[in-house]
């Protein structure tokens, strides 16, 4: 199971978005179930009230045709809610039920497009099968083994559940301010001139994390370019361009020193991968 869904655009660029996990989706489902239960409860109460009403009118000798019609309508209504709640919300609220909306989950097509009625209907009719034998056991197991965390309904409909954490870089003044600081202020120099600045640390650690995913050729081309300004600032001679291994060893050593430094340079807010200010909370 991947944590990210990759969308291949016609421009041949892969866009990625985080997938909603089993836990998040289950909570969303729980909220929706509660809501459905509440609506059904109200319907049942309405039915009860009408039965009492019908009983009273029948005492006056006029059994209610109106009561029968109302009860018939209630039966249809309950059916439409039980089977239609997910289908209609997802089809007409762009892949979100109230529970999903609260949990910031959205159902989208695997190609990234918004879902339509067809997808919503297929995935939610197959919901009963995912529910089997109880409490979505089958759906959960299938999700666990599927690469994009899809349950059976998702596989048949060609949909995925994505997390839609809304970035608010520009939305709040705070976010914009932090961004400005990060963009305009010169990176703070470390106390040790041979140590790494925050920005350098960021760039090099990013390189190191992505190293496995890059081809040897790409690393040979990329790393010398990344190192040149760093080495120039430190006044160290550049490495011979073919010595990738010694460059990487140097990077590891510098990163290690920075990690062990007693007072590491305070990272500007939106720089760390998990920087919370860059991401909004619930809308």
């Amino acid at each position: 199971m991947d944590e990210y869904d990759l969308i291949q655009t016609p421009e041949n660029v892969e866009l990625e978005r985080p997938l909603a996990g089993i836990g998040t989706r289950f909570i969303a489902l729980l909220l929706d179930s509660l809501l459905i239960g509440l609506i059904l409860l109200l319907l049942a109460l309405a039915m009860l009230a009408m039965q009492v009403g019908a009983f009273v009118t029948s005492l006056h000798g006029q059994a209610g045709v109106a009561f029968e019609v109302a009860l018939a309508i209630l039966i249809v209504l309950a059916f439409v809610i039980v089977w239609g709640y997910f289908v209609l919300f997802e089809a007409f609220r762009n892949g979100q039920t109230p529970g999903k909306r609260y949990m910031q989950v959205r159902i989208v097509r695997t190609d990234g497009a918004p879902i339509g009625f067809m997808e919503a209907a297929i995935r939610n009719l197959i919901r009963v099968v995912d529910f089997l034998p109880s409490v979505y056991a089958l759906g959960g197991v299938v999700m666990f083994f599927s690469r994009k965390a899809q349950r059976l309904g998702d596989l048949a409909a060609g949909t995925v559940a994505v997390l839609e954490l809304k970035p608010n870089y520009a939305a709040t003044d705070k976010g914009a301010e932090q961004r400005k600081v990060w963009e305009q202020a010169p990176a703070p120099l470390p106390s040790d001139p041979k140590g790494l600045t925050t920005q350098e640390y960021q760039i090099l650690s990013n390189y190191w994390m992505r190293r496995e995913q890059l081809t040897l050729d790409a690393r040979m081309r990329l790393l010398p370019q990344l190192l040149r300004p760093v080495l120039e600032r430190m006044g160290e001679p550049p490495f011979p361009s073919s010595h990738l291994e010694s460059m990487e060893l140097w990077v590891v050593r510098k990163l290690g020193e920075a990690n062990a430094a007693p007072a590491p340079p305070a990272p500007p807010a939106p720089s760390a991968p998990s920087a919370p200010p860059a991401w909004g909370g619930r809308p």
Partner: protein
Amino acid sequence: MMTASQFLQAREPAWRQLEALLDRAAGRAGRLDGQELHELTRLYPAVAADVARARLLGLDAARQRRVNDLALRAHGILYRHRRVRPAQRVRQFFLRDYPRLFRRLRGYFALTTAIFLLAALATYATVRVRPSVAYVFVPHGLDVGGTDDAVTADDVSERYRQMPQGIMASAITTNNIQVAFLAFALGIFAGIGTCYVLLVNGMMLGAFFGHFANHGLTYEVWEFLTPHGALEIFAILVAGTAGLRMGLALAVPGSRTRGASLRHGAREALLLLLGTLPMFIVAGAVESFITPSYLPGEIKIAIGVSLLGLTLAYLVVGGRRGQAA
């Protein structure tokens, strides 16, 4: 090649511009005017390329995210599929697409019918030979008075007549539609779940006929079942066809990948299923208002047969105009 900071400096204005556009569009390209739309189509490919460049430059994760999300939002707006007006879509579906779809899937329909009839006939024969087997399928409640001898068709009809008809119509219709939904959904087990639904319903029908035949009530059971049952059973068979269509798409994908075949099969199956909804509504209305009525049996049977006949005629003839042979 650009350094990361040159790249950021050069591209930041474009990102801000796209961000502003996306905020204004708020998820729908329709909210933008022509000029803005033009800007959007100009900016999006460039920003999509920035995503790749940001990755190549090894930009920090938060920045990569930002560019990625911008491109993602723009992608979501631009690559929507054409929307047809719903009313027109529904009209086109019933007048043209549905009969064509049914004819295209007639092989699956034949298979479904064969499974159902086989189960019905086998159970009928079994019940004729061993009458007590009927009670596996037929509720004892049908034996008014507790003994077999007390069963008459009038008893059954009488029970029907006592129920409030409007309530019965909605209860029967929703229940039948639920069975149809199950027949569709269970198809995802390579069609096996659908076969189960078909077998159980076929056996019930066979047992019902066998049970009444054992009591010399063959005509009465026809009179009782045909008005609504002809269309209702046909609709169940179509729903079963939908389930098998999806299941076999998964089991026998042909030239597609298994996943693509399942998705394609599920779409066709869902459309086939949707067309049964009107059938169930008509059948449910007949079951509650005509079946229990005091109309002569011949007229009731005629109603049931003509409903099925009309449906079949619609499916066989409908949407032929303009269709390549």
